[in-house]
């Protein structure tokens, strides 16, 4: 367990017109750990992630990467730092195979010609590094893959680029039991190989199964960021629904203000 976060944002504010979606949000991600980001619908999970990924510019706040302040204005800046986001709609091309999808937009070339051999080899190695055993051939069309396999390919695509931070937006939302287990296993392995992983999920079972830390957003505020081993299932649910649980979370006054501001 490392003491310094790999990526940390402090006091982030973000408004869309009159609606303030994020208020003074602090969020830290550590290498080798899975940090679950939970919160009810509209709590600001996706907005926070998009701010980190450079898709939404932040109104105010600090962005630190490996301890140094950085400015992230575009997705390109974020991926330059090694931050990759795997979105819920996986953004894979059905008509291309696994290798072609993994290298889409960043193809290896020999002069003018695509270097298929190197790409296939790297893709195979990346999948092997994640101990993925569920795909028969890396030359299969993505159209022929199951939901879990697609998720696997999308995640492998994100780690192919020496990424340090991998953010997964609801990776298990549309999957069956066995496939969910498979993807969670992959998420765990990502962290074990040194990546800082953020897992957005509504499923508390998934969250407790793989997370080291849990960050709960409540109506645009960070209610609490705690170690998973220190809290119970019920406490997290309370943090999500009320913003506080016992001495955890927002102080009653802040929670009320937040509530008032939103309703």
């Amino acid at each position, binding site marked *: 367990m490392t003491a310094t976060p790999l990526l940390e944002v402090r006091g982030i504010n973000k408004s869309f017109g009159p609606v303030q979606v994020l208020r003074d949000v602090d969020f830290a991600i550590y290498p080798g750990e899975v940090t679950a980001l939970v919160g009810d619908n509209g709590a600001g999970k996706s907005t926070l992630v998009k701010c980190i990924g450079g898709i939404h510019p932040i109104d105010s706040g600090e962005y630190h990467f490996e301890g140094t302040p950085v400015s992230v204005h575009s997705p*390109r800046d974020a991926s330059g730092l090694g931050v990759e986001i795997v979105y819920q709609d996986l953004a*894979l091309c059905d*008509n*291309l195979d696994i290798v*072609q999808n993994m290298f889409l937009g960043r193809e290896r070339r020999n002069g003018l*010609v695509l270097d298929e051999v190197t790409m296939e080899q790297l893709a195979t190695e990346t999948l092997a590094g994640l101990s993925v055993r569920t795909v*028969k*051939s890396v030359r299969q069309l993505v159209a022929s893959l199951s939901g879990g396999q697609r998720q696997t390919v999308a995640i492998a695509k994100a780690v192919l680029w020496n990424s340090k931070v991998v953010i997964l937006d609801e990776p298990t939302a549309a999957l069956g039991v066995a496939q969910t287990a498979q993807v969670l296993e992959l998420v765990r392995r990502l962290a074990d190989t040194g990546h800082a992983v953020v897992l957005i999920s509504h499923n508390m079972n998934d969250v407790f199964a793989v997370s080291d830390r849990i960050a709960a957003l409540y109506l645009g505020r960070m209610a609490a960021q705690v170690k998973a081993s220190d809290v119970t299932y019920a406490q997290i649910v309370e943090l999500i629904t009320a913003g506080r649980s016992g001495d955890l979370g927002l102080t009653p006054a802040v929670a009320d203000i937040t509530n008032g501001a939103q309703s």
Partner: protein
Amino acid sequence: MTVVTSAAQPPVEAGEERASLPAYARNYVARVRGGDIGALPAVLGLIVLCVGFGIAKPVFFSAINFANLFTQGAQVTAIAMGLIFVLLLGEIDLSAGFASGVCAAVLAVLVTNQHQPWYVAVLAALVTGAVIGTLIGLLVAKVGIPSFVVTLAGFLAFQGLLLVLVKNGTNIAVTDPVIKAIDFDGLVPPVVGWVLLVVAVVGFAGVQLMRRRKRAARGLAAEPLSVIALRVGALAVIAGAAVYVLNLERSRNAIVNSVRGVPLVVLILGVIAVALTFVLSRTAYGRHIYAVGGNREAARRAGINVDRIRISVFVIGSTMAAIGGVIAASRANSVDPNTGGSTVLLYAVGAAVIGGTSLFGGKGRVLDAVLGGALMAVIENGMGLMGVSSGIKYLFTGGVLLIAAGVDALSRRRAAATGLR
């Protein structure tokens, strides 16, 4: 859960699975049964129609008629090859026919009325095609008008432009010997034809073997030699037979005027087809075309400049239409208001679809245009020999197109069920 392997020990698994020719054949049959039929309907259709016409009219198989097939189908095939790029994005270009007419008219006006040399005229025709494509592409990608509407407007406007260029219906003769050679009387000398065939077959075999060696050297699954040998052998036999027949004497009066050799247009289209296939399957640009056609949003997120890809395919489409126009002008020795009109565009779209290219984007090859174009030429030619009326010919062509589209739709449904494609 799904079947295990690959990642951990891919060479072994993949090697076992693909090592032998029978395994390869089984794999192919399984793919076809699963709905991934590729160009199979076009190939079967070609064989059936050729045999049918050959039995009904033995003259169908004569050397002179065989040569006619190529020269007749050239314009449609050229336009279809360009259309493949447009169709790969799920777009359509209805203006390609008259765009080729306009380019042919530009050629004719320059070479006949302005007495320019042939290369200036041909270059101007190609540039005209590229400009038309850029215009269509900008309207589709930047302004956001659906390509169907833009090119429908183009279809009407270019028809008008063609009339203006040929001064309301006069017929501009094209007598330049070089342009006439393209698709009228240009022949590759028999010896050169054989040499080019050998070069093509050896080159094809070399590329295949080199790819195999490179993959094997890196420990990746490589195709068995027998499969490569079969493929190279098939090319050698089919192309060899074609060259042999085309090198036979076709003239009724051989002493006065010997007509032997592969029509020049076959060589031109062959080179273009190889070049375009290379672009589509071996370059990043080609890969990006498939990606944009398969999932535009995914392509955008991968950092691909989607607008540029969309504009570029219309440029390629219209430039190929211009080449089709040059071929038409050469074949007819003239340009009139109907050059590139009537059924040319619809035959070109039909050729692409019959060849196996999807109208929904993401699926298609340059070879589809060649096969489909050949099928169209065979129908046109065979029906002509049978002496049937235009009405029957159109009915028959329509039926073939419908069958091809039906087979495609059914196979796609099957593919969706088996999870292939």
